[in-house]
Structures are given as C-alpha cells and as structure tokens.
C-alpha cells in the first residue's frame, strides 16, 4: 500500500530533521507513529502527500513514487489520500456539509470546484458520511459553532469523501477531551477494520497507541528506532523511543 524508503529531509540544509526513514503501511491496519516532540513525525506524514517537499528517498504509494509526480499526477494521487489535523483545518464560516464536500474537490474541474457545483450523488454521499460520524443534525451548522470533537469528525467525513486508500492523521486527538478522543479513535479503528483503509496516525499518547494500533513505529531524532507489531511495544521499548540524547535537543525547533 504505502512504502517509505530512505526518506531524509533537512529544512535548513544543515541539520537533518529526518535521516534515512524507512517503513511500510499495510491495508486495513492502524499504524501509529510515536516519538518525542520534534522527532520528525509531522514531517514524515506531510512528506507522504508532498505537502512538504522532501530532500531524498522514495515514497511508494500504489507502486508510484510520490516524489516523481508532476502537478496533475500529484493532484490525482492526493485525492486518494485523506488527511486530518490536530487543528482540524476546516473552513470555519462554511457549514459542515460544505466542508465534507471539499473532499471531492480533487476530482472536480476548476470551474465546478470554484462555484461549489456538486451533483446529487455527491451531496447524498456527504450527508451519509455526516450520518456515519453522527453529525447529520449539524449538516447546515457553521463549523465555527461546533465543538472540537465534532470538528474532528467533520474532518474525518471530509477525508472519507475522497474515497481514500489511506488516511493520514497528524496528532488527531491532541486538542480533544478524553471522551471525544475515544469517539474519534473508535471511528478511525472502524475504518481500518471494516473498510480496509490504511490509517497512519501520529500520536503522543502511548496508551492510546497500545489500545488502537496494529503496528507501531517509534521515531527519535529523525530516525526509526522501533518498528514492530503492537504487542512488542514494551515499557523498555517506550523508554527507548522517548530517550533524550545530546543530538535530539537541537532538533526540537523543527516541529511544525
């Protein structure tokens, strides 16, 4: 499904924020990336759909290297990759259903996209997705009036509107209360188990990783230090992933 080989990235040309990161993600599995702040988790996730242009390596999504695609090809590839964010990144003055429909912009012509011309099938699907995440009654509410957990569910519906093969989740629960956290993680897990979507999540919370992940990747100072099935994530392994060494201090500034 997704294979990352020897990914390396430096923002300033001197300090490496990623050095030789390799891993792969299987369909229908929840893969969690854990590691200290500034380890490079966000950089990895945003390199996958090329929101961050990387320096070196190979990102194979459906056997195609994302780094080699031209504009139109990248656009088509991105339309199959859903993404949700810590700060939700919804368009707040628009309603929930409009935000969900943004998920099909990748397949629309410029004109139709600009003037919000969606067909009946798309509108029906958007409503169905809102129902799926339990927000059908909020369809015509402006997103600025929703709670954090509700916003994140709209974000998930927007990602699902893309019919994604994989969903990238950048700290999806970092701003949520415990109850919303469970709701959001349950939905993500369900997508992997019942719809065969690969779910790749950046997390801080080790206990959540243990509960929901099939596969865990530990990142420290831009390197993969752990890559195994979840049961192998012992306390010693966690300590190893979160250890601080002399090099990691300097790289803390690179998280964004």
């Amino acid at each position, binding site marked *: 499904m997704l294979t990352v080989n020897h990914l390396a990235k430096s923002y300033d040309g001197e300090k490496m924020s990623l050095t030789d990161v390799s891993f792969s993600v299987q369909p229908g599995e929840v893969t969690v990336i854990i590691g200290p702040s500034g380890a490079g988790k966000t950089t990895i996730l*945003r390199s996958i*759909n090329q*929101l961050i242009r990387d320096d070196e390596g190979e990102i194979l999504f459906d056997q195609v290297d994302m780094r080699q695609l031209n504009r139109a090809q990248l*656009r*088509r*590839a*991105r*339309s199959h*990759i*859903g*993404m949700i*964010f810590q*700060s939700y*990144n*919804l*368009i*707040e*003055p*628009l309603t929930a259903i409009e935000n969900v429909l*943004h*998920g*099909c*912009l*990748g*397949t*629309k012509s*410029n004109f139709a*996209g*600009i*003037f*919000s011309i969606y067909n009946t099938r798309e509108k029906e699907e958007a409503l169905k997705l809102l129902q799926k995440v339990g927000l059908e009654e909020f369809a015509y509410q402006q997103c600025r009036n929703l709670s954090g957990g509700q916003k994140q569910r709209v974000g998930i519906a*927007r990602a699902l509107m*893309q019919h994604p093969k994989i969903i*990238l989740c950048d700290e999806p629960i970092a701003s949520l209360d415990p109850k919303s956290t469970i709701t959001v993680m349950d939905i993500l897990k369900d997508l992997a188990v019942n719809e065969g979507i690969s779910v790749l999540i950046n997390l801080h919370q080790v206990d959540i990783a243990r509960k929901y992940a099939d596969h865990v990747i530990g990142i420290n100072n831009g390197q993969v230090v752990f890559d195994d099935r979840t049961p192998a994530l012992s306390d010693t392994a966690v300590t190893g992933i979160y250890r601080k060494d002399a090099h990691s201090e300097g790289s803390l500034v690179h998280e964004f």
Partner: protein
Amino acid sequence: MNSNLQQVNHFFNKKRFRLSLILVILGLAYAGASFGLGFQTHSLLNIQDGIAWLIQNFIPNEASQGYWQEISQQLFRTFLVAVAATTCAAIGALFLAIIGAKTLTAAITVSWVIRGFSSLLRNIPIVAWAMILLFSFKQNDLTGFLALFFMTLGFLTRAFMETIEDFGTEKIQALQATGATYLQVIFQGLLPEIAVALMSWILYMIENNVRDATLVGLLTGTGIGFIFNLYFKSLRYGAAGLVVLSVIILVVTVELISNLIGRLLS
C-alpha cells in the same frame, strides 16, 4: 529574600525613570519646535476669539437655506465617486493581494514587487494624486475617482495581503491535501474565511474616501468640495457652513451604516 526585594525595587525604579525620561524628551521636543517656528504658546489663550468669529459666521442662516438642493445633489455625487472608487479598487487589490501574499505567492520576488507598488501608491498623498492627475484628466469626476482609486488600491492591497498572511497556510494545505487546485483553494477555502475581514476593510475605506472625496473635489473642481470652495471664496460663509454640516452628517451616516453591516456580518 533581601536581594529579591532589591531586585524588584530596582526594576520598578528603572521603569519609573524611563517614563520620566520620555516625558522630559516630549517636553523638550515641543519647546524646541515652537522656538524654531516662532510659535508663542500664550497665544493659545486667545483662541476663543477665533472660535467665536467662526461660529458667528459659519452658522447657516436664513439665506443659506436656499442652497440645500444644490448641496445635497453635489453631496450625493461625491458619495457615489467615493463608493465607486473604493469598490473598484477593492477588486483590484484582492487580485494583487492573492498573487502577492507570502503564503500564496509563486515567487517571493512577485510579492516584493507588489508590496513596493502598493506602498508607492498609498504613500503619495491624496492631494498630490489629485493635482498630478489634474494635468492629464482635467477638472471632472474621473480625476477625483482616479485619485481615490490609486490611493485606495495601494492601501487595500496591503491590508488584504496582511489579512491573507494572518490566515496562515494550515487550512490551505488541508485543502491542497484533498487534491484541490490553486483556484479551488482560493475560492473554497481562503475567500470564505477572510470575507468578513475584507468587508470591514472595504467599509472602512468607503468612510475614509467619503471624507477624502470632499478634499479631492476642492482641487479637481467637482462635487461637494467645489461648491464649498465656491461659497467660501464668494464670502457666503453660511452656505459654506451648511456644506460642512452636510458632510459631517453624511460621514456619520456612512459610519453608522457600516457599523451595522459589520455587526450583521459577524
């Protein structure tokens, strides 16, 4: 404990000293400037005589009532010029701001060129604009329109650019991640988010331009500014006072309406 106390005292003493220093500097600046100009501070004591003369002469009287129709006609004309110049400039400014905002621009050089251009436009005073344009476009409404247009274009480009840059890149990236094109991101993401902010800048600029249009009209010989000048120079002070009063009423009305619109939008 003792050294803490010393430190905190020292801190506040230093702050107090700085404040006193600033006050002394301001005082010296005033004294120096008025000495340079030969300005006598005590003449401020006689200011009431001037004001009394002003009130006696500029209060609209019976004779000036007859001017209402002409004044309101010219006032409306001036208002329309201001609104037209602002809305046209706003469209141009939005276009330039989107191309030039650092978060969206294709090349940073483009951003700098647009920044420089807008800075040039708005840093030429409106009076200078009017006088320069007067040579090519003569005395008519178009000259006033253009003077307001150029100044507003410069100002709004900068304001819009900052609004767009404050919006950040996160939400733009979120839409790009769905495979949306550049124009789709602008129309579906950026514009809905900043619409209210843009609208309040435009309303602010309309208010401003209604005021400035009066001044510009004085120079270009059109609108309310022209008839003010005409009445004033022909010693019809009452009528001139009426013009001033009508401008004040218009500006306050526009401000009230724009506040109302602002409240409705947010």
